Structure formats: C-alpha cells, structure tokens
C-alpha cells in the first residue's frame, strides 16, 4: 500500500496542481470581470461612495489643507459643529479621501478612479498574501492559493470594486505583515511596517487590531520583545501624534466624526446571520483555519503571525453587528482565513527531501487532499459570488436608464437636494452633499444630534427635491431616515416619480388620495394610504404605504357586504351598489394583507375565512397592508381591484385566479378601471407595472 502511494503521490500532486490552477484562473477571471464592469459603471453602486467623493471634492476645492484639515472654503472635513449644515459626517480618517484627490482633480468627481484604486488594492492584498505564504512555506502553490482564495470570496468580489476605504486599509496592513514576516530582525523593516500599520489605521480605524496584533506577536516570537516593542512604539508615537494633530486642529471634530459618529446600535442577530453565512459559504476554509489553530507554533512557523491575525480579524468581524454595517467588516477575516488555510497547505506539502518517512508520506497525501479541497472551495466561493454580489450588481446596472432619468431630475433641480442611496447623482455633478441621512439618523437616535432644524427646513420646503431609496426586499429607508424625517417628508412633500427603486419627492402642490374623504368628484375615498405612490397592474392597483407590514390600515371604501372565501389567507371582497353604473352591483377586492415570510394573515379577525355577506360600513377597518411572495411588488402594499358582479351579484372568482376558465377572459374585461371611482390617475399600459403618484385629479 505504502509503496503504491509512494509511486502515485507525485502524479496525484501534479494533478492537484492542475486542478487548483483551473479554479484559480476561474476566480481571477470572475474577480477581474466584476471589477471591470463595476469600474466602468457611471452611477453609484453603494450608499457609502458619494460621501467619500464629497470629502475628496471638498479637499480638492480647498486647494490646500490649512492646519491639517481646515479648508480654505471655510468648510471642514471634521467639523465639530454638527448643528449647522451641511449635515455630513466623515466616518473615516482622511487617508483614502486624500488618495482620491488626484483622481478628482484629473477626471472630475466620477467614481471610476476610486473604484479602480480599490481593485488595485485588492490585488495588492492578494500579492501580499502570496508573499507572506511564500516566505513562510516556500510553497508557490500554497502562495497562489492564498492569493486566489482571497479574491474568490464573495465579500471581496462585492467590495473590491466599490469606491470605499476598506481595500486600501487591508492592502496597507497585509503589506505590513509581509514586511515583518520577511525581515523580522531588520530594524528599518520594523519601522516601515509600523508606518504601514498606521497608514491602515488612518484609512479605517478598525484596522488597529488584527494586523498590529499579529505583527507584534510575530516579532516577539521571532525577533524578541525589543523588536516587538519597537513596532509598538513606532505605531504609538506616529499614530498618537497624527491623532493628536487631527483632534487639535479640528477642535475635537475628528474624534466626533471618527468615534462618536460610528457608535451605532448593535444587533447580535446580524452577527449570527453572518456567521452562518460564512460557515455555509466556506466550510473548508474554516476547517483549515481551525487546523492551523490546533497545529501550534512548533509545527507551523507562521503560527505566531497567522493565528493572532485570524483571532484579531474575527474580533473585528463581530462589529458587523452594528446597524448599517456591511460585508466590508469581513474583509480582514477573509484575508486571515485565506492565509491560514494556505499556510496549512504549505505545511502539509513540505515533504521534500529523500527519503520521505511514512508519516511525511501520508502528510503529503493530506497535502494533495487539502489542495483539492481548497480548489473546490474556491470554486464554490466563485459560484456564490456569481449567484450573489454579481447578480446584485447586474440588477443595479440594469436600472442604469432609470438612474439616468433620476440624474436628469437632479440636474434640473436647484440646491440643496436631499438623497440617500443616490447621493452620488449630486457628486458626479460636482455638487456637495447637504445631508448624509443614515449617519445623522444614527446620531439623532443616539441623542448626539438635534434634528429639529432639519425638520423645520423640510416643513418649509427648503429642499426642492428629496430622493428616498427603498430596496425591493428591505425597507432600508427605515435605517437611513428618522421616523420624524419620513413623517415630515410625507406631510410636506408628494411622491412625483419613481426611478430605480427611488422615490422622487417634491414640495406638495396636489391633493393626495385619502382614506378620510374622496377626491373631488369621486364616489369613494382610497382604501388605504399610498404614501409612496401607486403601482398600476392592468387595472389592479397596489397602494404603497409607508411602514412595516401590519402597520398601514386598510378600510372599506363604501358600505357593502363583505365576503372572505375559506381559502383566502390575505384577502377580503365587498359587494357594493355601483356608484357609477346605477342599478349594478360591483365588488371591491382587498388583497395581499399578509406577511408571507411569517405566513401571518393581516386581515381583521372580525372577518375569519368563510365569512359571507357581513355588512360593513365605509371606513370600517379591514386589515393592514402586507407583503406577499405571490406578487412583483416587494414593498408593503395593498392590492386593490374593482370587478363587476356576475349576473346573480356574486363575486367573479376568476378575478383572483380562483376558478380556471376554458377560455381565459382578458383582465381588462374582468376588471373595471378603478381611477373613476377614486378620481386618480390611470394608465393605459397593460401587462407592465406602472408607477403613478397617489394624486387626486385636478
């Protein structure tokens, strides 16, 4: 057996290398394609891009920095006075915005240079990981695995092509780790590593844990405590001096922006969800990391570097529980776990030197198995990337035309404009931000910012345009705007457009549909609120209300007899005398009053399934708006339709697909146009959802 294994092992090792190479090429290709299409995309891909461009614009417009960060224009990047506009927050230290300034100066405030910088930093990180593993294991294959598994992570694929700070910080910190790995006893190298680590921390403050800890432990283990203390001293003196300088020159504003403004609420469920996700995505990598942990420093020379880095990055990753956090909190962990798993491969493959003992032979076999496993793991990570972030980005790019329309609206509008997801439409026109809604909302919730002046400005129509974004499956505006801001916008503004899942609000001039009283000339009031407008689905209307499922009430539009079929979990229908066709009967249908995710009906308990001919009064409560899987609308909404009664006055069941027809009746023959009943806008477009403002006709 041993003899056969000894004979076959070199060929198996060769085959595993070819297999790994194929998956590495795949990972590299997907990473580069994604980077290319993202860099080339004109519009914002992420909420956090525009504030950074805004900061770079302000730095560039200031021409030169005075006293650190005070600008000639009078604006400050880290203004300690949050009470006065612009209500913007610079969440991060200034290194990345400074790195963006040349791009802004050369190409204008576009996103491409910053995204390209992130891509290059991701590649630089992969190269650093390559060198670290090569230095520690002398194994090229392990080094390549470290580099490519890092690039294959869906989190890296997603984040590396965004104009965000994280990849620059990661690149600086991993290069610092390489420098101390390669030259642990060289004093100059220690100083260089210290400078790189400070650079990383002054790019993103959370990089002050994992890499510095790893470098410190590694130097202590390999070059003695003096060298480790030298690194700590360099980092402490340089970092401390910079911090002091920035705090003093900004009147404490730097601290407010960097620390106070980053203390958001914490949700442990987010941590649990992400942990499950990582375990699902990358079990092999996690097993590799665990194996390295168990191997101990005697077996694995890189242990004092890799394990502290892994542990530190894990602690950093836990902060993903902060409200508003994203996958960028996991990037350092991705680098650390890639490093650990590859270090294990390198250790397993160190079987050279004749004659190999039996134990080393089996270690070699394990090495081949590990290479194949990590290669396949890389493939699954790529698959996850293609399924997840690549699809999300594709969907985002698919709205390019809609966003171009939005850009036109922003361009035609005077300042100041408020926006969230598409703040970048302001910065690409060279216009500064007036408000970063998410950051200021979090500060307001923490009691650190008084929103009253802004609310007053909203009430006074100070803003000609307000853009509020709503991801299809996620009520993101709830995190980005305080409830008071949303109420203020709804009270003083009206939704006039809908582009790329973004609602355009302009100062209110029209009378809006109301549940309290009908529009002028209409027989019926609205059945529910349409704060975010109405979707027209070939004579069916979806009223988009503001709020979570179960919070926006639905009421009867007129007196009638209510019916709820036994199989209806989410709907009721009411028979009325038709106010527009005298002598006829008509049915109003109220659907999607359900929380599909929880399989919970939101229909009023007074109307259990099987209810027949129960009298109801106009304005009587029927239930609440919900969200149903069985519809294109993923927003909280009510599905509303009006159908003519059958000859005997009964409900036309085919309306909701309850009874099959041999020859399907066209929907426009089954349903009545609801707009005359409500005196609102209607659409002639059949088969395609059309967004309409919830306005009364003049």
């Amino acid at each position, binding site marked *: 057996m041993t003899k056969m294994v000894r004979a076959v092992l070199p060929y198996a090792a*060769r085959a595993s290398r*070819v*297999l790994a190479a194929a*998956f590495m090429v795949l990972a590299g290709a*997907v990473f580069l*394609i994604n980077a290319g*299409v993202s860099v080339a995309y004109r519009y914002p891909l992420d909420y956090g891009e525009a504030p950074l461009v805004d900061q770079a614009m302000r730095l560039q417009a200031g021409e030169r920095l005075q006293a650190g960060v005070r600008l000639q224009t009078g604006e400050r990047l880290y203004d300690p006075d949050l009470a006065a506009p612009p209500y913007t927050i610079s969440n991060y230290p200034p290194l990345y915005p400074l790195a963006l300034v040349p791009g802004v100066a050369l190409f204008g405030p576009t996103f491409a240079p910053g995204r390209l910088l992130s891509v290059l930093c991701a590649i630089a990180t992969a190269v650093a990981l390559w060198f670290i593993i090569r230095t520690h294991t002398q194994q090229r294959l392990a080094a390549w695995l470290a580099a490519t598994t890092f690039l294959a992570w869906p989190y890296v694929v997603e984040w590396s092509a965004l104009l965000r700070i994280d990849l620059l910080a990661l690149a600086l910190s991993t290069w610092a780790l390489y420098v101390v790995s390669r030259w642990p006893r060289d004093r100059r190298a220690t100083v260089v590593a210290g400078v790189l680590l400070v650079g990383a921390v002054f790019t993103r403050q959370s990089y002050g844990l994992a890499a510095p800890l790893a470098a410190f432990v590694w130097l202590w283990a390999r070059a003695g405590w003096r060298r480790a203390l030298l690194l700590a001293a360099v980092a402490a003196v340089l970092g401390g001096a910079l911090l002091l300088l920035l705090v003093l020159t900004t009147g404490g504003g730097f601290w407010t922006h960097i620390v106070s403004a980053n203390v958001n609420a914490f949700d442990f469920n987010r941590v649990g969800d992400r942990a499950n996700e990582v375990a699902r995505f990358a079990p092999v990598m996690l097993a590799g990391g665990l194996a390295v942990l168990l191997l101990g420093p005697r077996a694995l020379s890189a242990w004092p570097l890799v394990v502290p880095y892994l542990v530190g990055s894990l602690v950093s990753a836990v902060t993903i529980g902060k409200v508003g956090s994203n996958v960028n909190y996991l990037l350092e962990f991705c680098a650390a776990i890639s490093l650990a798993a590859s270090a294990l491969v390198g250790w397993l493959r160190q079987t050279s030197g004749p004659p190999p003992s039996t134990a080393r032979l089996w270690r070699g076999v394990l090495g081949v198995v590990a290479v194949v496993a990590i290669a*396949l793991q890389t*493939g699954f990570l790529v698959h996850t990337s293609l399924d997840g972030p690549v699809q999300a980005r*594709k969907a985002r790019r698919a709205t390019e035309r809609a966003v171009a329309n939005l850009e036109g609206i922003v361009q035609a509008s005077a300042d100041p404009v408020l926006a969230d997801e598409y703040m970048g439409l302001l910065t690409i026109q060279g216009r500064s931000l007036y408000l970063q809604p998410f950051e200021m909302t979090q500060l307001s919730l923490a009691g650190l910012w008084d929103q009253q002046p802004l609310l007053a400005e909203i009430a006074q129509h100070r803003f000609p345009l307000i853009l509020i974004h709503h991801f299809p499956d996620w009520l993101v505006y709830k995190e980005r705007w305080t409830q008071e801001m949303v109420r203020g916008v709804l009270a003083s503004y009206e939704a006039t457009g809908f582009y790329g899942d973004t609602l355009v609000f302009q100062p209110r001039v029209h009378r809006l549909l109301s549940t309290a009283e009908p529009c002028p000339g209409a027989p019926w009031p609205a059945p529910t609120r349409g704060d975010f407008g109405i979707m027209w689905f070939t004579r069916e209307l979806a009223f988009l209300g503001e709020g979570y499922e179960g919070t926006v009430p639905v009421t009867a539009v007129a007196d009638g007899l209510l019916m709820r079929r036994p199989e209806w979990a989410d709907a009721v229908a009411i028979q009325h005398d038709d106010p527009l066709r005298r002598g006829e009967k008509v049915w109003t249908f109220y659907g999607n009053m359900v929380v599909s995710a929880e399989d919970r009906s939101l229909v009023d308990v007074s109307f259990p399934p099987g209810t027949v001919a129960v009298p109801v009064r106009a304005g009587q409560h029927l239930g609440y708006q919900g969200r149903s899987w069985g519809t294109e609308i993923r927003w909280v909404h009510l599905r509303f339709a009006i159908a003519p009664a059958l000859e005997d006055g009964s409900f036309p069941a085919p309306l909701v697909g309850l009874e099959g027809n041999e020859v399907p009746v066209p929907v426009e023959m089954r349903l009545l146009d609801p707009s005359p009943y409500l005196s609102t806008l209607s659409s002639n477009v059949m088969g395609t959802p059309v967004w309409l403002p919830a306005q009364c006709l003049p």
Partner: protein
Amino acid sequence: MNSQADGAKPAVWRTILVALLWALSAVLSVVMIPTTLDAVTRIFAAFWGDGGVFGRDYWNIVMIRQLLTAVMAILAVAIIVGGAEYHVRAFNTERSWKLLTNTLALEVALLLVAVVV
C-alpha cells in the same frame, strides 16, 4: 511509475492502463467541449445576459461560443491524435505519465469548473 530506461519489457497491465487512460482522456476531451461552453455561457450570463435573443449580449455570447468551440475542438484533436502518438513513442516513460496526468487533470478540472459554476 517506473521508466523504461532499464530496457525491460513493459508489463501488460501498464500497456492496458495507458490505453485506458488515453481512451478516457479522448472521451473527456470531447465531453468537455459542451460543458466548457456552457460554463463560459453561464459566467457571461451572470454578468451581461439580459434573457433576450435580440440583444447585443446574446450575439456576443454566440460569437464567444463559436470561437471557443474551434479552440476546444483543436485541443480535443491534439489530445486524441497527438496524445496517442506521444504515448506510443514515449511509452511508460516519466514524461508520458506526466502528460497523461496533466491531460486528465485538466479535463477533470474543466468538468468540475463547469459543475461548480
């Protein structure tokens, strides 16, 4: 695997093994053509596919598939014909076994990539 440098007559099982492995590589070289094309198509569609047959994306992937088919076909011919000649000439040598290993590993890798993607 031993080399034939000592001039000893190769064992029958080695001849059979080489023939079987070559035959397997020949079959896989053909099988991997459609699977690789599908994998490339899926990757392309992940980034650009719009689902329509009249768009630019559709015709781009048609062109890519045609070019790739030609390349893969040439590769298959090289593996089948060139591989056979090579393994006959260099039978039971180190380089013959290495080429067989590389060929089969590449084919399996492409199939696995297609499965994973």
